C-alpha cells in the first residue's frame, strides 16, 4: 500500500502497530526474532480488526521475515482472519458440552436466518459475521453464544434468534 493513498486512519493504525513492534527491539540477525511473530499478529489484528495482505507485509518487513512465512502462520491459526468482520461478531460455541446441548442447531438456524455461513464473509449489510468456536470454557452455561464479547448462555434456537433480532433492530 502506497503511503500517499493511505488514509489518515490507516496511517495511524500502522503507526500504532509500529510503536508496538518498536518495543520488541527486533534484531535482524537474531533468528529468535521470529518468536515475536504471533504476538505481533495478535496486536495487528487487535488494531486493524483483521489481517489483510498489506498488514501481513508490514509485519513481515518489520520483523525481517518473508511474507510467505507470515502468511503461513496467519493461515494456520484459526484466531487470525484475513477478512473483515461484521459489526456484530456472533460466535457460536461448538464445544462438546454445547454440542450435546444442541448448539449445532442454533448455528444452522442463525446461518440460515442471516444467509451467511460461519467463518466466511459478513452479511451483505456488514452487520453480522458468524464464527464457530471450539469451547470458550463456559460449559456450565451450554449452549453458549457470544456477540461482541457478551456471553449468552443456556440458549435455545428460539432464544438465540430473538437475541439476533434485537441486534438487528439496533442496527
Amino acid at each position, binding site marked *: 500500500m502506497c503511503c500517499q493513498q493511505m488514509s489518515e486512519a490507516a496511517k495511524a493504525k500502522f503507526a500504532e502497530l509500529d510503536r508496538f513492534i518498536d518495543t520488541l527491539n527486533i534484531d535482524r540477525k537474531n533468528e529468535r526474532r521470529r518468536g515475536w511473530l504471533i504476538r505481533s499478529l495478535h496486536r495487528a489484528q487487535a488494531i486493524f480488526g483483521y489481517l489483510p495482505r498489506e498488514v501481513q507485509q508490514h509485519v513481515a518487513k518489520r520483523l525481517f521475515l518473508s*511474507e*510467505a512465512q507470515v*502468511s503461513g502462520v496467519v493461515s494456520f491459526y484459526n484466531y487470525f482472519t484475513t477478512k473483515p468482520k461484521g459489526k456484530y461478531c456472533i460466535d457460536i460455541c461448538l464445544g462438546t458440552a454445547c454440542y450435546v446441548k444442541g448448539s449445532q442447531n442454533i448455528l444452522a438456524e442463525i446461518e440460515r436466518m442471516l444467509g451467511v455461513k460461519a467463518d466466511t464473509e459478513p452479511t451483505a449489510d456488514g452487520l453480522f459475521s458468524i464464527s464457530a468456536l471450539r469451547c470458550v470454557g463456559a460449559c456450565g452455561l451450554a449452549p453458549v453464544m457470544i456477540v461482541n464479547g457478551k456471553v449468552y448462555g443456556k440458549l435455545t434456537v428460539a432464544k438465540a434468534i430473538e437475541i439476533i433480532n434485537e441486534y438487528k433492530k439496533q442496527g
Partner: protein
Amino acid sequence: MDSKMVNLTINGKAVSVPANSTILDAARALNIKIPTLCHCDKIGGCGISNNPASCRICVVEVENRRNLAPSCATPVMEGMKVHTNSRRALNARRTILELLLSDHPQTCMTCAKNQNCELQELAAEFGIEEIKYLGERNRFKPDASSEAIRRDLSKCIMCRRCETVCNKIQTVGALTGYGRGFSAKVGTANLIPLAESNCTFCGQCVNVCPVGAITGISYVKKVWDAINDPAKTVVVQTAPAVRVAIGQEFGFEPGAPVTGKLAAGLRALGFDKVFDTNFSADLTIMEEGHEIVERIKANKKLPILTSCCPGWINFIEHNFPDLLHIPSSCKSPQQMFGAIAKSYYAEKIGVAPKDLVVVSIMPCQAKKYEAARPEFAKDGVRDVDYVVTTRELCKMFKEAGVNLANLEDDVFDNPLGESSGAADIFGVTGGVLEAACRSVYFMLNGKNLEGDAINFRAVRGLDGIKEASVEITPGKSIRVAVCSGLGNARKVLEMVREDPNRFQAIEIMACPGGCINGGGQPFLHGDSALLEKRMKGLYTEDERKVLRFSHENKDIQKLYAEFLGEVGGEKAHHLLHTEYHSK
C-alpha cells in the same frame, strides 16, 4: 559424529550401523527397499535433507513398539527388530497410498510428470487398481502466471520438499505451508500468483517435486509451430550445461558430454541453424573481463558480481536493493546471443528480426523469465523468443523419434557456434570466474597464462562457498568468492554488506553446483553424485578443446571487428549490457 555402532535386525537380517542412523539408513545398507515420498536426502544436491516424516509411506513394524515407525525418522536402537514387509506395515502403506491417491487428480496421462512421478511409480509398484476412497478432493486453479513455473496445488501431496529448498537452501522464502488440515498445501504468501511473489524462478522446487504439482511452463508447442512456419528462420542456441546432462536420458554415461550428438539432434528436429550459447559465453567474458579490469583499475564498484544467472539476478533485485550497483552490467550469455542474433546475424542473412526466431535450450527455468524481461525486447520483438529446458528438449527428441544414441556427431553452425573451453565451464559453479580470470590476466598483462596455471583449481568443486586469492597479474592477487545456491549467495552478500573490501570479484549461481543442477535439468532422483559427474564432464570438455581462452575465439574477434567495434565500447554497451531494478 557418533562413531558408535548399533546392531539390529531387519527382516531377520543382522546389520550394524552408526548410532545416528535411521531405520531407513540401516535398511538401505542391507539393500532392503522401503518406499519413501517426502524424505529426500541431500535435497537439491546440498547437504540439507528434507525430512518432515510426514507422508508415512515408509512406516515399518518394530517389535514391542505400540505403533508403526516412520523408518526415515526413527533412530536405530541396539537390539531393535524391524519388519519392513509385515502384513501390518504393508497394509498401512497401501492405505496411506490410497489416501494420497484419493486427494489427487486421476489425470496421469495428461500430466507433465507422466512416467516421471514418484506417486505414480508407487501406485504401479503397489498394484493399485482402483481409487478406494471416494470423497472430496482439493481443487485449485493451476497457477501459470509466470513465464517460468507452473504450479498445480491440486496435485500437491504435502511432501514439503519445495518448501525446504525454497526456504532452507535457497532462502528465497517464496513458499510456505499454507492453511491447515485437509486443505493444507505448500503455497505462496496468501496464495498469490507466483509471478506476484518474490520467487526467483530458480526452479529448484521443480526439480524436487515428486509429482506434477510444480512443473516448468512449456513453450515446446510454440517451438514446433515456429519450426514448421516457412516464414520463420529458426535458430537454436544451447547452454554449456545441457551437453553434460542430456546424455543420461538416452543411455549415455551420466555426465559424459554429448555435444556432437546434441548438435546433430537439434538439426534433426528441423532448426535452421544450430548455434551454441558457448559462443556468447566467450562474448560475455570479453565484456565482463573488460569491466572487471576497468573496475579494479579504478577501484570502484567492487566487488564485481557475475550476472549470467537470471535466478540470482532476481534474487538480488528482490533482496539486496542496496547492492544493485555492483553486479556486472553484462547481459547473460543467453541474452547476448539473442541480441547478436537479432542484429548482427539477422543483418548478415538479411532476415528481419521479427522473422528470426531464437530458441534457447537451457538447463534453467529462470531463463524463461529472463527472456521475457521487457528490457530484452525491441519494438515488441524479443531477443530470445522461446526457452526450452533440457528436460523439455528430451521430450521433443522423444516425440520426434530422435534418439541421440543413434546419431553421428555433428558440429555447430557458424558464425555463432565457435567457442573456447572457457565457455564450457560456465555450466558449473566457479567456471565463469575461472573463464574471466583467464582473459583478465591476458587483458592486464598482454600475454596468456601458461601450462596448468590456466586451471584455477581453487575456485573449482561443488562446495557452496569458496574463497580464494587469484593472481591476475604477476605478484598481484585479488580476493574472489564463488558461491552457488541462493542461501550461500545471501551469506556472501551479507559479508559484502559488512565489509565491502573483503572481495573484489564474486561469482554467484542460483542453483547449488551451478547450471549442471539447474531447474530444467534431467532429474537427479536423489542421486547427488550425478552433479559430480556432470562437473567432470564440463572440465573434460574444456581440456579437450584447443582453444582455452575466450579472447582467442576467432569468431568473437570477427564479431568485434565487423560489427561491435571496441570491447566495452558504445555499441557493445548498447547491445550487450543491461541494468537492474529493485523489486
